[in-house]
């Protein structure tokens, strides 16, 4: 019961700070809201007995990617956004439509969740045990694992090629 309560609190915080991230005017504060949201998400992963995913979530997203976001925002010294003149009517219509569609999708997801969700089965072994995961990665999913690493390498080389100055080193 307490686990369920903690899960609800963490999930609520994740959603709340995701909303803060979207609506906050100041980019740096937005990034910080996202950090809190990712943390809450990591807590939900722990409560779903997936501590490995939680650790990776914190190391990769909160610890590395968002630090880079902050780094860039601070380096460029991005100021808080100011409200622009009100948009054209078509903007309002389109955003209202998008909100309704998203709410409908969310509602449908909630309804089907209530109907089909079974209580999660207790994990057979230590959920943080990395050996089964590593075995899967390097046997059944070896091809996709290696393809993914080549994709990342290609992205890295591409970014380097784009950032390089013309005629530079």
């Amino acid at each position: 019961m307490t686990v369920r309560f903690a899960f609800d609190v963490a999930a609520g915080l994740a959603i709340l700070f995701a909303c803060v991230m979207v609506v906050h005017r100041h980019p740096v504060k937005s990034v910080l809201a996202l950090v809190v949201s990712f943390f809450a998400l990591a807590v939900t992963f722990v409560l779903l007995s997936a501590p490995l995913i939680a650790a990776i979530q914190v190391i990769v997203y909160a610890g590395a990617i968002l630090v880079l976001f902050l780094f860039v925002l601070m380096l460029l010294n991005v100021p808080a956004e100011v409200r622009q003149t009100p948009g054209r009517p078509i903007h309002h219509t389109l955003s209202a439509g998008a909100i309704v569609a998203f709410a409908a999708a969310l509602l449908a997801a909630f309804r089907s969740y209530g109907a089909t969700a079974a209580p999660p089965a207790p994990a057979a072994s230590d959920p943080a045990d990395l050996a089964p995961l590593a075995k899967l990665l390097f046997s059944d999913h070896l091809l996709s694992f290696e393809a993914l690493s080549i994709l990342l390498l290609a992205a890295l080389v591409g970014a380097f090629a784009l950032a390089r100055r013309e005629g530079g080193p």
Partner: protein
Amino acid sequence: MSGADLGIAALRVLAPVLAILIVLPMLQWVERRGAGLIQDRPGPNRVGPFGLLQPLADVVKFFMKEDLIPSNADRFLYVLAPGLAAFAAMTTFAVIPYGATLTAGGRVIPLVGADISIGILYLFALTSLSVYGIVLAGWSSNNKFSLIGGIRSSAQIISYELAMTTAAAGVVLSGGSFKLTDVVLQQGGSWLALPFHGWNVLPQFVGFVVFFVSAFAETNRLPFDLPEAEAELVAGYHTEYSAMKFAMFYMAEYINVVVASALTVTLYFGGWGLPGFHPTGIAGVLLSVVIFAVKVSILVWIFMWVRWTLPRFRYDQLMRIGWKALLPLALVNLFWVAALVLWKVL
């Protein structure tokens, strides 16, 4: 879980943190007297015998100072940042085993805060968060020097974290576990027979060097203290801080030094173990804690020794060392360990 169990668990978690907090003022005294020794001057020697009460006087001074908040600072983040720095520093100790397993009164008590199976990942997750305290302090102070300090810190910590984790991956590979208690036990074996189960520092000396050098950068200590480089940035990210808020950054730095030393001892120097030492009974367990403390103290002294011996690097040199020297060396070490494991030497 009974009350006694809860009490034991709380003690297990709190004991190392309290021990560090008590030793902290002493570390500052050692650092300043050590600086005096190295620079051929007395160091603090007025308050108490050998200046031993100087840290106490400093604590009183921290409490008495005026607590300033710059008028254009972002108040919330300005107040939050030192707390974040101290929090990230203190929580890292939770997974480091500081003594052998104690068996007393029918209870088995491992002397470690929480023996989780992803211990090393937990440590790197928290150390990667320590950068937020510094970056936010630099940004929220609304001061150019602080901002540059914060930005330098984020770039530096991300760069060196890569080399540090890659070096630590060698230890994980040879030990076959992310659990720090397993890492310690695995180093408690024979030094003479193969497979080698002595201290990791021998087969992975390169990995140890990379890890230890990166630890200096991660803790913002000289020769890598670019975020606060007083000659160019006044005091970097904590220029605007005073009183207890400054003290919290100061504490966080020393706690980070202790944690980095403890982690190095655990990963490369056999943790609380010694070759041929098999702790039994309460006396043996106490001895293991003492061994751990002595090893950590030696490394903490090396941190201080280096600070007063080496000059600060230039920023481009810092980045070059991180990316072009330490990271390739860490990768070479990883391949070397993989080969040793493959040939069943480890």
